[in-house]
């Protein structure tokens, strides 16, 4: 059984009186001890998937089809009470802005200890000791003193460490990390990503869903990757396979548009046109208006995600 299984998930947003699909019929599995990267440009629906899994959608959004399973528990059918128990314990999330997870009115220590007491039922002394331990684990210097500090007294990198400490405090089985390092400097990014891998994946065997737009981050920390375009997964598989041999024309174009080291100077290849908005997504394959391989068929058929090579699935008629 997969740790987390997303099956035919469709999530819609209410806009101007109409329900528009932000995520369309998306399926993927997350295994224990694995980091799955969910990568795509802004507006592709990758964060919406995270919020759908956490059941933290805003009031103008709804899951209209599909199911999300955490082991044998159907999250889409779970009651709000049951979910509240799950969030922060078996299922955890960190955000791009760590302040989302921190309350500016309470000390950092208070917030970590509260989480521990609530979810693990520890007494105060045990919770304090564990909190101290956690802060040391995520690399907060002078942890004893810092327990009494307020969130505004921390830098962005330090706040993200604390958000991470809270997120991992109850040994979550699944961590959803939504652009956790986008706002941070590269040296801090490296440290945070390393912490996620070591503390969660290697030591606890948890699964991590890492949402990012940075292909470099995916290459460096993920085991598998799902590439999203306009609400759909267009390609999914092992990081090595996809980076060495991208199959979907969108994935190929995305890699070519990277101004990366080792590539000679000159014009970067780029994808013509713009990502379609929710209201004007095309029929058939979402990418066909911008695809250099597009044929007449692409306008009519929505290609399903299917096995194309070892450890690689792709949704494109080229590989039928």
């Amino acid at each position, binding site marked *: 059984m997969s740790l987390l299984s997303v099956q035919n998930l469709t999530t819609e947003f209410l806009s101007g009186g109409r329900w528009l699909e932000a995520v369309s019929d998306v399926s993927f599995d997350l295994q224990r001890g694995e980091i799955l990267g969910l990568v795509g440009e*802004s507006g592709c629906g990758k964060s919406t998937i995270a919020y759908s899994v956490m059941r933290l959608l805003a009031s103008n959004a709804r899951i209209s089809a599909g199911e999300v399973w955490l082991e044998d528990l159907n999250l889409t059918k779970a009651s709000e009470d049951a979910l509240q128990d799950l969030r922060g314990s078996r299922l955890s999330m960190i955000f791009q802005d760590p302040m989302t997870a921190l309350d500016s009115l309470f000390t950092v220590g208070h917030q970590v200890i509260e989480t521990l007491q609530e979810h693990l039922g520890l007494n105060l002394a045990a919770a304090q000791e564990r909190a101290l331990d956690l802060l040391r684990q995520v690399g907060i210097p002078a942890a004893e003193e810092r327990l009494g500090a307020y969130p505004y007294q921390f830098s962005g990198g330090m706040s993200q460490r604390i958000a991470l400490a809270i997120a991992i405090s109850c040994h979550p089985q699944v961590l959803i990390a939504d652009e956790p390092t986008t706002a941070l400097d590269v040296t801090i990014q490296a440290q945070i990503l390393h912490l996620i891998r070591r503390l969660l994946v290697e030591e606890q065997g948890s699964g991590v869903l890492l949402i990012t737009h940075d292909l470099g981050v995916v290459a460096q920390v993920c085991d598998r990757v799902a590439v999203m375009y306009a609400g759909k997964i267009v390609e999914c598989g092992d990081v090595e396979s996809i980076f060495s041999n991208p199959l979907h024309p969108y994935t190929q174009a995305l890699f070519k548009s990277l101004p990366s080291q080792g590539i000679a100077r000159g014009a970067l290849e780029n994808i013509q046109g713009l990502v379609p908005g929710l209201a004007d997504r095309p029929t058939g394959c979402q990418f066909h208006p911008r695809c250099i391989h597009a044929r007449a068929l692409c306008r009519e058929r929505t290609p399903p995600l299917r096995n194309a090579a070892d450890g690689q699935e792709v949704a494109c008629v080229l590989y039928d």
Partner: protein
Amino acid sequence: MSSMTDSARPLLRAAGLSKYFPLESGILAGWRGAQAAVKAVESVSLDVYAGQTLAIVGESGSGKSTLGRLLLRLIQPSAGHVQYKGENIFAMNRAQLRAFRRQAQIILQDPYASLNPRMRVGHIIREPLDIYREGSKAEREKRVRALLERVGLTSAQARAYPAELSGGQRQRVCIAAALALSPEIVIADEPTSSLDVSVQAQTLNLLSDLQRDFNLTYVFITHDLGVVQHFSDRVAVMYLGKIVEEAPTDALFAAPQHPYTQVLFSAIPRPDPSRRVNWELPKGEPPSPLDPPSGCHFHPRCPQVLTACSSTVPRLLETAPGRRVACLLHEDEEN
């Protein structure tokens, strides 16, 4: 992109440039006597050559954006000066400054915040022409249409408000406005950092076409080393207000000399899963610019730290032609 020649005179030259922001302001600040200051930029000297691209690289708090603003006299320096074609820009009178502003433009980081939300796109691009009273009204409109087309927008989009455009389109508007007066030098402060990769690629291509067509000089302020390597001729790496290393791009990427540059390079997530880096390498957080470490600012995080590093401030010394580094390791080599 031409290579640097020794005889070439720099278009823009900064010497001993410093900017301190006092921590307290108001009536009482002076009365309390000596006051603390953030040393955002500390005695920076660098040259920008015509037709080239100089990248200024650094993490947040390195002072790179402050340096960019100093180079255009958008803020006053605490010490030092900037020469444009041999003329100190801080000593210019009104007319001279006006002429300088025509030739030196800036493109700002956030295309969402850098466009006046209550002005139409056409008006935004036309404004520099209005300010300098370029040509007749009809000529200005014609120029706006030409600029829109040049940056890949339609003339119909002149009627749009910024809110109606995507991030990439807005950045094109910013570029068109910066180019309206045919400047010689453009300072671009993180011009692509808020854009998606495919849009970033479109924008970088546009900037590089424009450089070729108009022989533009760029100063590119960025933290994205992929962009740096792709785009620049020379790189200056900043850490806590100081330049720690400066070198031609290819040489720098082939063999970074300063330990900070090495740490920075190793921390960049490369889009290549077969070459995973040692994630533990960079240690600690950048210290607060309020209270920078003594000696070499990088010494508490430096993997190759020497005893002398905490007390001796390293000088930015030439280690090879066109290459400078501020590190005791390399000073020793010289002696």
